[in-house]
């Protein structure tokens, strides 16, 4: 499978001072123009997989196994090998745009600096390109917005700028870690539809890391479900959502409000619920503590 854009094989990561692996035995691959979701709850290791792919694990973390991106081995690679990749052919969108943008510079100067650092010649050309990108991500007055500082823009607008910066150099792969989780739901909807449109038109691939199964269902063609640092299930989104094989995946899907019996709303629910079970879900059939017998 040498044609894969990204091939992760037997990845294992342990953080300094921890006595267990945060990620163990994770293998998956990704072709060109493919959007794969990595879904899991907190502590599942999904973010670690993203950081390892970017070669951005914190100091002291040890990684084993292999991550091949576009012919380059990332695990154990030197900074000098990775730096030219990052931002150019391998870019990232993080959860909180406030941490991705430098508060001391206008968004325009950050965007043009990125363009010029990676080859766009001339100030005017970079500026024109920046204006174009802000238009693409939905700014109505890009000239003016380029002069704005991050704190003058809303969270949704900042995330649009981050998306523009992530896509501006036509990367081959975008790692997006919870790109919309910090946003209000209507803003999230706008950013998601924008991201979906831009990615599908660009030929870039994307690894979308999220806890939100709805986001995965709408954005991805394949999904990787992680729990406790391991992949429990992977496959086409349609198949897994329709017929999950792994009990954990099934449990995640069953937890979704829209799939639960209550989802018709309490008004539509027939009669009182919860009476039949003495214990809440999660402790059903098992006494919750050693001193409780009922």
């Amino acid at each position, binding site marked *: 499978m040498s044609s894969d854009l990204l091939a992760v094989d037997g990845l294992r990561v342990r*953080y*300094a001072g*921890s006595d267990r692996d945060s990620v163990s035995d994770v293998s998956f691959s990704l072709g060109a123009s493919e959007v794969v979701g990595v879904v899991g709850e907190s*502590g599942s290791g999904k973010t670690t997989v993203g950081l390892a792919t970017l070669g951005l694990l914190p100091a002291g973390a040890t990684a084993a196994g292999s991550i091949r991106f576009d012919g380059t081995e990332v695990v154990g690679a030197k900074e000098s090998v990775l730096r030219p990749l990052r931002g150019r052919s391998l870019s990232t969108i993080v959860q909180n745009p406030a941490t991705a943008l430098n508060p001391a510079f206008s968004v325009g100067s950050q965007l043009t600096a990125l363009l010029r650092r990676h080859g766009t010649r001339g100030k005017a050309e970079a500026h024109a390109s920046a204006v174009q990108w802000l238009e693409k991500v939905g700014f109505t007055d890009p000239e003016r917005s380029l002069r704005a500082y991050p704190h003058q823009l809303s969270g949704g607008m900042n995330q649009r700028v981050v998306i523009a910066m992530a896509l501006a150099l036509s990367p081959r792969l975008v790692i997006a870690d919870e790109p919309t989780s910090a946003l209000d739901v209507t803003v999230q909807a706008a950013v998601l539809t924008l991201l979906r449109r831009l990615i599908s038109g660009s030929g870039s691939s994307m690894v979308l890391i999220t806890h939100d199964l709805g986001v995965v269902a709408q954005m991805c063609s394949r999904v990787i479900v992680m729990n406790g640092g391991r992949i429990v299930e992977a496959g086409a989104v349609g198949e897994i959502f329709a017929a999950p094989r792994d*009990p954990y995946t*099934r*449990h995640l899907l069953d937890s979704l409000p829209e799939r639960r019996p209550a989802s018709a709303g309490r008004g539509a629910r027939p009669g009182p619920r919860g009476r039949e079970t003495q214990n809440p*879900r*999660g402790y059903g*059939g098992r006494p919750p503590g050693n001193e409780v017998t009922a």
Partner: protein
Amino acid sequence: MTDQTVNLHEISQEVPGTAGPARRWHRGLARRGEIVAGGVLVAIVVLIAVIVPLAEPGADTKINPAGGLAAPGAGGLLGTDQLGRDLLARVAVGFRISLSISLGAVVFAVLVGGVLGLIAATSPRALDGFIMRVLDVIMSFPALLLAIVMVALLGPGVVVLLFAIGVVYVPIIARVMRGAALQTAQQAYVESARARGAGRLRILFLHIAPNSLGPLIVQSSILVGLGIILEAGLSFVGLGVQPPTPSLGLLLASGRDYMATSPWVVADPAVAICLAVLGFTLIGDGLQSWLDPQKAAIGR
């Protein structure tokens, strides 16, 4: 069967890879070499200060004119002074007094400054401003000058010295406490306690104070070290402990004349001061980096 899965899942998260608080404490402590090194230094000096005077009571004031200015080894482990008194015994007793003054000053400052800081942090802006401005005035005097003024007014002596240093420390402690308390007061659990009907005193002493002690402990440890220096300085210029009671500063002062010919007379108390100050500062620094949550947190 789903229920069973849920169950396992939640229980498995219950204690994320840790045993009780005790184990965390040990592991954290072992990682901080500074605290251990500082602790060992302080322990050595304190042990000497406690054991030596017990072993031979009165040795510090026993005059032996024949054995004056004996070099270390020949006359006792650390040598003798111009009157033939054993310097090991004198340094030990002197350190006892210096440390007691310094510790007492810090305890006084923590009691007064800590409470003032807590009150300032949780009071209306006017009262907060008043308390802090008064403390600012105290703080604007150089520490040594302030202590000198107090001793000049009240006369020299161990107790006066203790309070003089304590007063210097009050604004420092109050500031640290106020800063920590302001931060704690914004925590959700404080708001939560308020929403559950907790009164002001309960919130202040049960929720804010215990959760704001970290920086106070760090600062106190450093101030104990600094106090030993302040005490030595004041006693050196004759404003602190009065002879014949030995204190480290006094030992330095009385040994000054013999420094050229018998350097151990000043070296002994000087080294004792250095070791103790270094020890307490190391402990303070170590605690600081250990308690600092940003450094302690390990990324996921």
